């Protein structure tokens, strides 16, 4: 086969899909290659909470039979993927990374789980995560925190920690993360992969354990932009089981895999994302500045814009998040607080101590932001920013309260619900990945994908893999 000189676990979904479709690669061989890779690396990475060897090999054999008999389902058919452990999986333990749900076995699949199954993907297992999608690496929970494949002494970011480490290290071709303040784009950026948070309502949250109803988003994490497009295609669309699910038609995202940003205007809110601030790493920002210049060379227009509400969006995101989380987790938090890890127990309790006035002011702030961003998007096509304020921190000396201090570059797009992608755009001097964030108009996933794809194909950072 053409890819014989490359390890199977380093194929992209796009590459493997072609081989699978043409019968040049067997889903069984591919799936086994990923379990071999997991066996070789997961004692160091701790990406997985649950492995589904028997089930996955059985699914792979079924996919092989289907493809051979001419019933090819599409780009995910026979593709080994994994799920953050808050996606309900029928008959399979779903822990949310917590002792609270240590033995919870759902009766039904979440809608995204079911849709990925329908697309023919192979579920390798359930992935590590920050407890209930909040906080940081916490040794008081039952599961070892995932480690960053680019430097095992560093965190992955979160909360989709295992999703990022698994995709980055070649343990899975793609994964789903979930995102309330940046939990898809953040770890994607810190682990050198692509993370796509779609528009609020684009992907059903039904059967996905809640952190904050009004800010939770579901989305893919993959090695390349095109792979995220394929995964989004499979999971997007209306679902009557999610009251916030949108009925907007789902376009063909593969049509956006074109290299063209000519004439597109990228708004850079420099006052918040690029200017000097104690919470922001200047080296990482400089990497993103350079990436923006590359887009300009490709025909994009860069425009500095002002969004005054940004200074308050982090506050709104945080207040809404912990207030809604408390409402959801209140019964367990009161009955069995000892089963929560230290970080999450503290933050959920704080959610119970905030007032209705705090919550409503935060929601009003959100509305202000939403309107302001919407007005800005009349004159620009996209927002372009660094994805994270810092590269991946070291475990040693890590302070979990750092995640609630300073600026957040991802939260503005959870608060406003706008689609946003993180695409790798380089490395720091110490070899840690840096991501560029591109956000767009509501339901303009096609535009966001095309812009990120154009940059990716030009910069080709996907050619560099971590050495683990």
């Amino acid at each position, binding site marked *: 086969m053409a890819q014989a000189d490359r390890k199977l676990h380093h194929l992209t979904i796009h590459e493997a899909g072609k081989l699978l479709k043409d019968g040049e690669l067997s889903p069984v061989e591919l799936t086994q290659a990923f379990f071999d890779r997991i066996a070789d690396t997961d004692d160091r990475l701790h990406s997985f909470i649950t492995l589904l060897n028997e089930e996955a090999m059985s699914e792979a054999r079924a996919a092989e039979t289907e493809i051979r008999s001419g019933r090819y389902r599409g780009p995910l058919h026979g593709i080994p993927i994994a799920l953050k452990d808050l996606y309900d999986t029928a008959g399979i333990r779903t822990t949310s990374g917590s002792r609270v749900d240590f033995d919870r076995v759902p009766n039904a699949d979440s809608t995204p789980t079911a849709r990925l199954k329908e697309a023919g993907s192979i579920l390798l297992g359930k992935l590590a995560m920050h407890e209930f999608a909040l906080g940081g690496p916490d040794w008081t929970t039952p599961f070892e925190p995932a480690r960053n494949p680019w430097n095992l002494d560093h965190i992955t970011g979160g909360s989709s920690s295992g999703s990022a480490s698994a995709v980055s290290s070649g343990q899975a071709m793609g994964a789903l993360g979930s995102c309330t303040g940046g939990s898809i784009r953040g770890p994607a950026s810190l682990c050198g992969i692509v993370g796509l948070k779609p528009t609020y309502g684009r992907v059903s949250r039904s059967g996905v354990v809640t952190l904050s*109803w*009004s800010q939770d988003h579901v989305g893919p994490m993959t090695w390349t932009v095109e792979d995220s497009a394929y995964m989004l295609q499979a999971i997007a669309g209306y679902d009557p089981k999610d*009251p*916030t699910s949108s009925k907007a038609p789902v376009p063909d995202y593969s049509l956006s895999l074109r290299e063209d940003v000519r004439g597109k205007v990228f708004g850079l809110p420099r006052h918040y994302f690029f200017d000097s601030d104690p919470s922001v790493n200047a080296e990482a920002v400089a990497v993103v500045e350079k990436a923006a210049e590359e887009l300009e060379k490709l025909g994009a227009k860069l425009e500095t814009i002002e969004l005054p509400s940004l*200074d*308050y969006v*982090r*506050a*709104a995101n*945080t*207040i809404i998040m*912990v207030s809604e989380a*408390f409402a959801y987790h209140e019964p367990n*938090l*009161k009955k069995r*607080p000892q089963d929560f890890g230290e970080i999450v127990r*503290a*933050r959920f*309790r*704080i959610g*119970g*101590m*905030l*007032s209705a*006035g*705090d919550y*409503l*002011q*935060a*929601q*009003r*702030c*959100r*509305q*202000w932001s*939403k309107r302001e961003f919407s007005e800005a998007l009349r004159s620009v096509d996209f927002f372009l920013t660094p994805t994270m304020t810092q590269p991946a921190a070291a475990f040693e000396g890590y302070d979990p*309260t750092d995640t*609630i*201090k300073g600026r957040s570059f991802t939260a503005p797009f959870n608060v406003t619900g706008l689609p946003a992608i993180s695409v790798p755009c380089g490395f720091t001097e110490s070899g840690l990945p840096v991501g560029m964030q591109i956000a767009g108009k509501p339901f303009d996933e096609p535009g966001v994908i095309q812009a990120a794809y154009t940059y990716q194909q030009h910069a080709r950072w996907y050619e560099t893999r971590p050495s683990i």
Partner: protein
Amino acid sequence: MAEKPEVSMEEFKFMADRAGLGMDQSELEHLKPIYELYMEYTAMVHSINFGSEEMVVEFHPD
């Protein structure tokens, strides 16, 4: 953020009890400085004059 907001232990305990959290003294002492970080955020959203700004409504009666 100019001044770091603070809350007295008495007031903090009152809020924790009102929320029904049932925390002992050591838990209260652990949580109070973290709560004070969040107070910076609540102070920020209360510092804005929103005028007639509505809150986000996600509820759709259909």
